[in-house]
């Protein structure tokens, strides 16, 4: 059936428009202003989904975020989105949606067969079976039957953005109460008011009102809002999270109403709202009544019927029957009649109903059955007939009569549930109001207030008569959670098995755990549990609501910070120059640094080896800029550093450099580097590359929190300088070609010395330290000249075979030399005595950070892992960082290989490690184990290359 229903004149849609869309492969048309749900209804599509567990056919129950049934898979490929409420999708041209959790289709679903063994599948049946032979043999099946939509396989083609906003007053919900509150607050022109509404347009329930006065009130209110320039109105924006200190998270749908490929830069905007005061005008959600087979397509909330009729102008069915326990549904029925939609009957549980309503119904020619219950419904893909039963008059069963009514649409109302998810998230407590059988705000700590229906202020009394489930008929087919197939019987079973805490029942029956998070099922479940356990509802308690109020796009939480923007990346001053030299880059502590400079077609390992050899035989050039540089200045600088390093800093002479080792208070080695004395009150600390910020924080903490009397400041100048390391026998020759006012000769500028001067007319700092074992000059110039310096050195060094080298070659070279690399050759237990610094500590007079911890029992253990070299007995043998040293019985670990390279200069494997008691075991043979392979090795001095250090002093 593809002919669409004629729309009522007062509808808020463009009657003469035609919007084409597709559902389950069929082509339909709707109107501009339709939601997918209203368009489907207009096309007479009854079954739009299948339930989670039993695959029962499901129709549209509601008209908004509360919808538990109409979940569809929207679009396809990189634009597909599972589990979308049809009620929340504005119809756009060419929309493509599919029913979910069904095969082949929701109209005819073979998995519906599961429903036949319903009796075998009560709540949590799975805990009681699938144990033989074991869970694994069943699990695959269960997993496949469970789940709803399908996950996208391709990356999201659209982008998201995050926006922070501050406001004095934030009003959530632009229905009548919300608009009133916002306008009230905006009277004070100094106040910034933010009004947020989740629908396509503001107005809330007024959008579904046929009453002319209400419609004009809305129009006026909206124009006033538009005029106030201290009110910001955000539509299509759902507040999903309410966090501490009045911070709200909201999601704005920017292009979902246009569909994919809308050309919008951002699909959704994630708002972080910082509110002074929050006013919740979030309205209320209607509750279904619980009765046998209340889950058939064609059974709809009365509030939804109202919306579809007046907002979308639909005449939903020929035979419309209402079933209620309160007055609100009567109003809806009469409103329908007023716009010319025929209502056949109103069935009301209550024996007596306000006479005005009864007369209204009589005048409208609507049959009404008071004191009457629906005890069953019939129909295959949709409801066709009702079975109703008049309640026995004062317990006299004889007078009860059962009738059957034709019914194409059953509009139900079991009362209203104020929407207090955000209130609860904010830490607010709820209280139960007997008269309306609903939970309302109680008390709250944050600056928040609740108005309108959300506060339980229902315009006009409901005169509700509570009925949590239908008595005297089987509970097995009385549905509570339509999506997860939870029935009254399931909740009773839970109680029977002693799951009487509301949280237990939720978890045991899964009531309210479906994607709607129980918006229509929680309170009914609560009531049924109260009955089953013979308690009052306050005694049962409620479950705490958790964010998000409505499921929220995961990508929106990420915003734009993905890919290259995922985490800030630091670039070297000479980054481009490295590219031109053919560098391959990698992330080293968030710095993009050259790994090596492979020649065309050259493998990484080969390039690294070539670079390492070049440094030993001629000269290499390394961009060393990320090496941490901290300047410590002040009258107490020297005293401070003496407490920071285990090494003696009291005797450090002006212009001299000294190696320093830094511990944390637990005695663990955290950093090392060369310390230079620039002046009596001025020191330059070098930290491990990328470690400057961490060490800066470490020093600041001690200065600000512990030694507040010390007059010392720390200046992180790491990126002020571009540092180029020239290393190799020809390093000096290269540098001497450049115009420099520092005497670079071996005699006057020795190892571990530091000079300042001018290079090519610019200020420069040169440090002679070495991490390669070769003569090295670490030349620093202001960063703006870094790239230029690199290029010049490459040019002038060309005739001496200068070779750019990367981090990996540097690591290879320092491993050959047995130079310690903190973090690689140490772990979180390493103390200085494990690195051969025991003597220095013993000699040091004063206290320093971590010193006391070194003498805790653990520090004195004989089997501490200590730094050592490892020489494989088999000269051709290879090993890898991560291999272990086994104990004699090979049952436990005795240490591990921390650095291992194939040395091109020694043409064998060179390895470093930390091994139990290594210092006392030099020369001993041990077993190295990796990936099932055992090798013999000898514990030797870490320094494998040039132990005499001739190269260094060359």
């Amino acid at each position: 059936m593809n002919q669409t229903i004629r729309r009522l004149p007062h509808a808020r849609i463009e009657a003469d428009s035609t919007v084409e869309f597709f559902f389950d492969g069929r082509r339909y048309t709707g109107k501009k202003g339709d939601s997918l749900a209203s368009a489907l209804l207009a096309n007479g599509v009854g079954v739009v989904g299948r339930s989670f567990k039993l695959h029962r056919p499901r129709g549209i129950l509601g008209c908004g975020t509360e919808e538990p049934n109409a979940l569809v898979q929207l679009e396809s490929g990189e634009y597909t989105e599972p589990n979308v409420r049809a009620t929340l999708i504005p119809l756009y041209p060419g929309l493509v949606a599919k029913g979910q959790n069904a095969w082949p289709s929701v109209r005819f679903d073979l998995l519906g067969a599961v429903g036949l063994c319903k009796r075998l599948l009560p709540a949590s049946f799975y805990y009681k079976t699938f144990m033989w032979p074991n869970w694994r043999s069943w699990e695959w099946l269960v997993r496949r039957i469970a789940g709803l939509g399908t996950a996208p396989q391709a990356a999201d083609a659209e982008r998201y953005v995050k926006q922070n906003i501050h406001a004095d007053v934030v009003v959530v919900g632009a229905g009548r109460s919300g608009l009133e509150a916002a306008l009230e607050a905006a009277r004070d022109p100094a106040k910034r008011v933010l009004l947020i509404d989740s629908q396509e347009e503001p107005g809330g329930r007024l959008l579904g009102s046929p009453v002319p006065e209400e419609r004009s009130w809305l129009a006026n209110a909206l124009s006033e809002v538009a005029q106030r320039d201290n009110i910001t109105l955000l539509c299509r924006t759902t507040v999903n999270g309410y966090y501490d200190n009045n911070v709200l998270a909201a999601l704005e749908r920017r292009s979902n109403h246009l569909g994919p490929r809308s050309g919008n830069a951002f699909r959704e905007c994630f708002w972080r709202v910082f509110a002074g005061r929050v006013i919740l005008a979030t309205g209320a959600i209607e509750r279904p009544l619980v009765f046998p087979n209340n889950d058939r397509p064609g059974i709809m909330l009365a509030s939804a019927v109202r919306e579809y009729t007046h907002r979308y102008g639909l005449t939903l069915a020929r035979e419309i029957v209402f079933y209620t326990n309160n007055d609100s549904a009567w109003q809806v029925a009469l409103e329908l009649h007023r716009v010319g939609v025929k209502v056949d009957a109103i069935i009301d549980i209550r024996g007596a109903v306000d006479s005005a309503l009864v007369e209204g119904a009589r005048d409208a020619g609507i049959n009404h059955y008071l004191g009457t219950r629906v005890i069953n419904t019939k129909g295959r893909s949709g409801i066709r007939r009702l079975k109703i039963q008049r309640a026995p008059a004062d317990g006299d069963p004889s007078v009860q009569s059962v009738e059957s009514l034709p019914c194409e649409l059953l509009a139900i109302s079991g009362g209203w549930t104020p929407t207090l998810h955000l209130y609860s998230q904010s830490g607010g407590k709820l209280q139960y109001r007997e008269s309306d059988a609903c939970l309302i705000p109680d008390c709250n700590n944050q600056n928040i207030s609740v108005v309108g229906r959300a506060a339980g202020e229902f315009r006009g009394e409901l005169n509700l008569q509570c009925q949590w489930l239908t008595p005297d008929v089987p509970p097995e087919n009385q549905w509570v959670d339509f999506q997860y197939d939870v029935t009254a019987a399931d909740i009773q079973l839970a109680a029977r098995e002693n799951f009487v805490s509301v949280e237990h029942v939720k978890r045991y029956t899964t009531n309210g755990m479906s994607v709607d998070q129980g918006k229509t099922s929680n309170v009914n479940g609560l009531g049924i549990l109260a009955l089953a356990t013979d308690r009052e509802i306050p005694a049962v308690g409620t479950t705490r609501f958790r964010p998000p109020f409505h499921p929220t796009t995961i990508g929106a939480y990420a915003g734009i910070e993905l890919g290259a923007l995922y985490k800030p990346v630091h670039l070297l001053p000479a980054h481009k120059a490295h590219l031109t030299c053919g560098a391959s880059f990698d992330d080293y502590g968030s710095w993009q640094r050259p790994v090596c400079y492979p020649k065309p077609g050259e493998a990484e390992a080969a390039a690294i080896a070539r670079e390492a050899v070049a440094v030993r035989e001629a000269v290499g050039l390394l961009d060393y800029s990320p090496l941490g540089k901290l300047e410590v200045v002040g009258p107490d600088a020297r005293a401070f550093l003496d407490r920071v390093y285990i090494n003696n800093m009291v005797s450090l002479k002006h212009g001299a450099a000294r190696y320093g080792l830094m511990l944390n208070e637990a005695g663990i080695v955290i950093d090392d580097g060369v310390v230079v004395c620039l002046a009596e009150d001025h020191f330059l600390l070098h930290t491990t590359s990328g470690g400057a910020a961490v060490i800066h924080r470490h020093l600041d903490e001690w200065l600000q929190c512990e030694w507040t009397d010390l007059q010392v400041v720390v200046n992180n100048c790491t990126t002020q300088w571009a540092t180029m390391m020239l290393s190799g026998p020809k390093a000096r020759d290269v540098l001497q070609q450049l115009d420099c006012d520092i005497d670079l000769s071996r005699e006057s500028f020795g190892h571990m010395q530091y000079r300042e001067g001018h290079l090519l007319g610019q200020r420069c700092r040169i440090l002679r330290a070495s991490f390669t074992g070769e003569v090295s000059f670490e030349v620093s110039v202001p960063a703006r000249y870094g790239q230029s310096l690199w290029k010049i050195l490459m040019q002038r060094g060309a005739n001496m075979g200068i070779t750019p080298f990367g981090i990996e070659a540097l690591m290879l070279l320092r491993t050959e030399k047995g130079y310690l690399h903190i973090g690689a050759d140490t772990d979180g237990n390493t103390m200085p005595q494990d690195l051969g610094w025991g003597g220095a500590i013993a000699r040091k007079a004063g206290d320093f950070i971590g010193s006391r911890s070194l003498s805790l029992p653990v520090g004195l253990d004989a089997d501490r892992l200590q730094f050592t070299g490892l020489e494989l007995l088999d000269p051709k043998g290879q090993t890898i960082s991560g291999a272990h040293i086994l104990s004699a019985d090979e049952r436990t670990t005795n240490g591990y290989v921390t650095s291992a390279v194939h040395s091109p200069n020694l043409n064998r494997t060179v390895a470093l490690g930390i091994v139990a008691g290594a210092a006392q075991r030099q020369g001993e043979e041990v077993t190295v184990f990796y990936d099932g392979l055992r090798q013999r090795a000898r514990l030797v001095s870490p320094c494998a290359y040039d132990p005499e250090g001739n190269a260094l002093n060359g």
Partner: protein
Amino acid sequence: MEKYSAFGLLRHALSGHRRWPQVWRSAELKPNYDAVVIGGGGHGLATAYYLAKEHGITNVAVLEKGWLGGGNTGRNTAVSRSNYFYPESTRFFEHSLKRFETMGRDLNYNIMFTQGGVLSLAFSRHEMEIFRRWATAIQVQGVDCRVMGREEVSEAVPLLNMSPHARYRVYGGFMQQRGGISRHDAVAWAYARAASSLGVDIIQNCEVTGLNISDGAVRGVQTTLGTIRTSKLAMAVAGHSSVVAGMAGIKLPIVSQCLQAMVSEPIKPCFDHVVMSPQVHCYVSQSDRGELVIGGGADTHPSYGQRGNLPTTESVLNAVTEMYPAFSRLKLMRQWGGIVDITPDASPIVSKTPVNGFYISAGWGTGGYKAIPAGGETLAYTMAHDRAHPLVEPFSLARFAQGRLVDESAAAGVAH
């Protein structure tokens, strides 16, 4: 205790499921118990069960201030694994993992333990070296674990971002195939059912307000339901250890922090393993119900607020979107927080205390769930013999004064 089985289910179906017995007895609080366990979470219930089953101590009460399983047991991401670095840790958690493997049959309750494998991803050369060191440590201890290269990883996790230009490039990882996920509520309920049937009294909505201690020994417990006399008292109150220990005048090396977890809407199966990305603080698995279960790092400030916090949620989901670009259009359905006890070495404390008869199980950090069976078993043993179970000797309260920390992250550079 009625045996659960498919046949039983069928039989009860005929009677409309109206004859199912209580899963655990509703017990009245007695004035006297041989042993009392504070905390009705997985650890507390398991402890009571093993006291009764292994040590014949059946006059036992479990006191739960809320509803049983309502603490971290019901709030975590239900991962079990034993891929630890130090032998002390591996030995303990491997024992626990074995218990998980047979729990369904042992307790006749299907906890749905799915051993899809736990895969940890490395994002740099250095991390890969650490992982090799880590994986080898596990192999040396005879536990299953294998290092995987980039290609293997990409096959195992087809939805993973394998771009060579990714901000954090995947270098590889290592997998413990026997690791996996189970249904956390089921574990608590299974132990409650088993313990209750052995005579243990499970008392819910009973908060401990004070401890009766004299001459350095436990005499009893004051609760909101009255005072109980007992000489053996254990606490297994993850998240609130400092508070309860404080009642005994004991200060702990513990900081309580909020750890968040979250789930997406349910989708059809698309994710087979538990995949951890320590470098970017996110781990992901998919539950039997189809939800993606997502966890991350704990908030860095002390917290007893059992609720989600926006900045953490954002950073975790930012990582998820970066790692799995296809999940961007899925929707987050529910987010919550649990309070975890963090010790200086992130290893637990299962120990006697300076107070005779008072035993603590605390400091499980983010790894408490996987420890439930072994944690209960060893605490029960420690109570019964007033002597630490061999498996928990390294996890004594006294280790800190000796500096003998068991710091997994120190060796592996990765928290658990």
